[in-house]
């Protein structure tokens, strides 16, 4: 017991000494930032994307193209989940303290591939601030010493259930952490101790919402979204970081007669059950005070009947005023989606030249295989291009750059060959202002969709279809020139045994001219961000999240998770 309590105290003591130590260190070289915005930090990783821009670009240059071959292991850390992290017993190792919370009397074991009882898999962002890492997995959170990998505390949430796919990370506001749980609570922890400050219900578990996004903290607003695979209305909500009180709710589908977008649905009932869930963390533009975020598929997902029309604001990019929750603009990337395109992918804010003049842009590569460039002040459409190798579901690109579906490629009773589940997904892309390239991972997969619903009222949720003939040609890393939308280079990966590799686990680019990506999931690879040439790799087996980087005491670290392991690399001095 005494050792458990000693660690946080000794760390606190260390933290008190650190400012003096840190200032004595040599300052790290920092690359000039062409697209300076969002007060990007230079040496830490305090938010989901490193900063609020969604770029996942770090200015750090200590690890760079010329020396990355010497990258070596600094430490590893194994994260133990569950109610008692050391397992108890006489011979159990002395572990960090575990703080237990949750509304369930006993944790509920959910089913499926990503069950609540599945092994720990860190798939989301790990935050770094003041020498401490904050990592999460469904129902679990940890603080880890960023210099040594020693676990400082562990928090465990007894879940009522909910879809446990991936917890995408936490939000940080001073010493307060915010985490979503699969059973729809926003939990706030004291970052120093892991003790719970409060938890608040954010969506209805009875309506089968599940909450796994990384909360985004903007000023005094904690922005929270949720997923849903039945027929419920998507929403973005803002909570007070201090009290946890709800500040506002923005529904992503019309909820009342007369609401904007109502005419894109045949009935109010269809709109109010139309989906459009906000389940991936967005990006924030401090100049316009807009939170820019993608929305998911309309519901029912595959069955076109019953929701004739464009189905606003599903499969859309939205600019939302952070103070009021009011939508300033929208752009729908998949009108009347019938393929579960679910266009919630990370929007990336870029200040750069477009068509000969400097502009404030937002870029998004969506699951439907199209790359979009918009003006992020107004939502004006500027460019649509395809990064997919198969677009037979598209009849035309209309005058506002939207792919218009071909109804003959909807699910059918005799089977329709489609790109099953889309080309890219929530694992985040990256943009390097050095190269001007937008990097994504994509998957070329196919299959047949059979329409099985015989009831004229149609299906619900993801129902009404059967799948078959599922097969994939391969998975790729692509570099897209945002000015033209053209794929400049592409790397093809051999599909691996790892289940996460094919869609990629997310990307990182750095001021050192590097692009970090997992290949099939077996290797973490450092590529030359300009040419795509692989420069370094380490076979970690089952890389599960996107690499990140931070600097402490003049030393740059690159970290990545593989299941329950965190690996940290640096240049050995």
């Amino acid at each position, binding site marked *: 017991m005494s050792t458990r309590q000693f660690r946080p105290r000794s760390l606190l003591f260390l933290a008190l000494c650190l400012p003096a130590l840190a200032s004595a260190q040599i300052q790290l070289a920092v690359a000039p930032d062409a697209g300076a915005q969002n007060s990007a930090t230079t040496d830490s990783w305090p938010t989901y994307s490193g900063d609020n821009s969604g770029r996942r670009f770090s200015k750090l240059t200590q690890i760079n193209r010329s020396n990355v071959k010497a990258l070596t292991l600094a430490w590893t850390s194994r994260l133990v989940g569950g109610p008692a992290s050391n397992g108890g017993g006489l011979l159990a190792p002395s572990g960090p303290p575990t703080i237990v919370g949750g509304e369930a009397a006993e944790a509920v074991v959910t*089913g*499926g*591939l990503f069950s609540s009882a599945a092994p720990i898999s860190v798939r989301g962002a790990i935050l770094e601030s003041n020498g401490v890492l904050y990592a999460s997995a469904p129902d679990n959170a940890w603080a880890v010493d960023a210099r040594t990998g020693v676990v400082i505390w562990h928090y465990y949430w007894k879940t009522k*259930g*909910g*879809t446990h796919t991936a917890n995408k990370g936490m939000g940080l506001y001073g010493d307060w952490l915010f985490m979503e749980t699969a059973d729809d609570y926003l939990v706030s922890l004291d970052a120093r101790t892991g003790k719970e400050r409060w938890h608040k219900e954010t969506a*209805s*578990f*009875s*309506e*089968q919402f*599940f909450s796994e996004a990384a909360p985004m903290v903007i000023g005094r607003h904690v922005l929270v979204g949720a997923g849903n695979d*039945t*027929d419920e209305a998507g929403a973005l909500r803002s909570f007070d970081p201090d009290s946890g009180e709800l500040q506002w709710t923005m529904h992503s589908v019309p909820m009342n007669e007369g609401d904007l977008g109502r005419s894109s649905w045949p009935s109010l*009932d269809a709109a109010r059950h139309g989906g459009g869930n906000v389940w991936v963390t967005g990006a924030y533009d401090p100049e316009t005070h807009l939170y820019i975020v993608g929305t998911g598929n309309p519901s*029912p997902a595959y069955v076109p009947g019953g929701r004739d029309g464009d189905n606003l604001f599903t499969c859309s990019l939205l600019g939302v005023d952070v103070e009021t929750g009011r939508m300033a603009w929208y752009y729908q990337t998949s009108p009347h989606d019938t393929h*579960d395109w679910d266009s919630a992918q990370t929007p990336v804010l870029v200040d750069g030249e477009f068509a000969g003049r400097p502009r404030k842009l937002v870029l998004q590569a969506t699951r439907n295989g199209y790359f979009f460039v918009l003006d992020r002040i107004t939502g004006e459409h500027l460019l649509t291009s395809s990064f997919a190798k198969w677009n037979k579901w598209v009849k035309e690109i209309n005058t506002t750059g939207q792919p218009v579906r071909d109804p*003959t*490629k909807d699910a059918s*009773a*005799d*089977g329709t*060959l489609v790109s*099953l*589940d889309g080309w890219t997904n929530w694992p985040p892309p990256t943009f390097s202002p050095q190269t001007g390239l937008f990097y994504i991972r994509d*998957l070329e*997969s196919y*299959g*047949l969709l*059979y329409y*099985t619903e015989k009831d004229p*009222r149609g*299906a*619900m*949720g*993801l*129902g*009404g*279809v*059967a799948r*078959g*003939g*599922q*097969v*994939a*040609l*391969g998975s790729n890393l692509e570099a897209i020139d945002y000015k033209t939308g053209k794929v400049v*280079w592409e*790397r*093809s990966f*051999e*599909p691996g*045994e790892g*289940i996460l590799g*094919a*869609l990629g686990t997310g990307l990182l680019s750095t001021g050192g001219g590097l692009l970090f990506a997992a290949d099939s999931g077996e*290797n973490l690879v450092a590529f030359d961000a300009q040419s*795509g040439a*692989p420069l370094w790799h380490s*076979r970690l087996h089952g890389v599960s999240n996107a690499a990140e980087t931070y600097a402490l005491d003049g030393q740059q670290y690159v970290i990545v998770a593989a299941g329950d392991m965190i690996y940290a690399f640096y240049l050995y001095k």
Partner: protein
Amino acid sequence: MLWRAAARVSGAMAISVLALVATPPVNAAGAAPPTTADARSEAAPAANLPATPASDDFPRPPSDPAATARGKQIFSVNCAFCHGSDARGGEGGPNLLRSPFVLNDQQGNLIATVVRTGRVEKGMPKFDLSLDSIADIAAYLHSIPLGRGGAGQPLDPKAILVGDAAAGRTYFFGQGHCARCHSLRGQFAHIGSMFDPKALQDNIVSAGATTLLGAPLPTAPPRTVTVTLASGEVFSGTLDSIDEFSLTVNSAAGRRTFLRDGDNPRLEIKNPLQAHLDMLRNWNDRDLHNLTAFLAGQK
């Protein structure tokens, strides 16, 4: 610019391998090949089945069977006319299964408000039902599985057989080049009685080659590889695994792993199922349906 362009699976046909494959056709994948994984975002109906309720992700308190039976009776008399006998909506009333009022209700507390006051503006009159009766209706509604996929319906195999079998035959021997590997005199002679139409069509597309995420299925005929080292040594076998940095080959001589940096061996990889993979970007649905109708008739 493909990083592993040199090693990219060769489209060339290896006749000897294909001869083996052609006899036991389509890797005997009558049942759907198991997908080892499905990392698609937030929803994954199981492999080839209709979406099945995954209600254990969202457990509800168990309903009292007696109350559920009473509630069903009360519902059928008072509610089914507008909301449908299965509560999924009817002529006048909306689908109740997905209604937030119903989903968030506990023992009738929310439903009672609506039932006893009505929603006159929407054409729903008030019902003079007791709170106990409404609690029974609630128990019945909560007993209906919701799942996240809605209630799945079985697929009708006959609905798949809409193609023109004669056109399928023409395609098989002509443009589709199927006869290069598959013979109607082998097991294909009876393939229509071995597999149902969906399995036939699914396997025309995938040949059971990979999972949805591209990992080779263990039931697929293995790819073969010839490795030529810088020393001139040649090593052949079946491909166990490969990535950008190493590959492992199995042969009668044993298991051998090669690193692909350093002396960077030259590779020649052949996939007996390559013809199927090469078709994926090019299929049109009509040819698939015609081919399926043709093969379904081979009994």
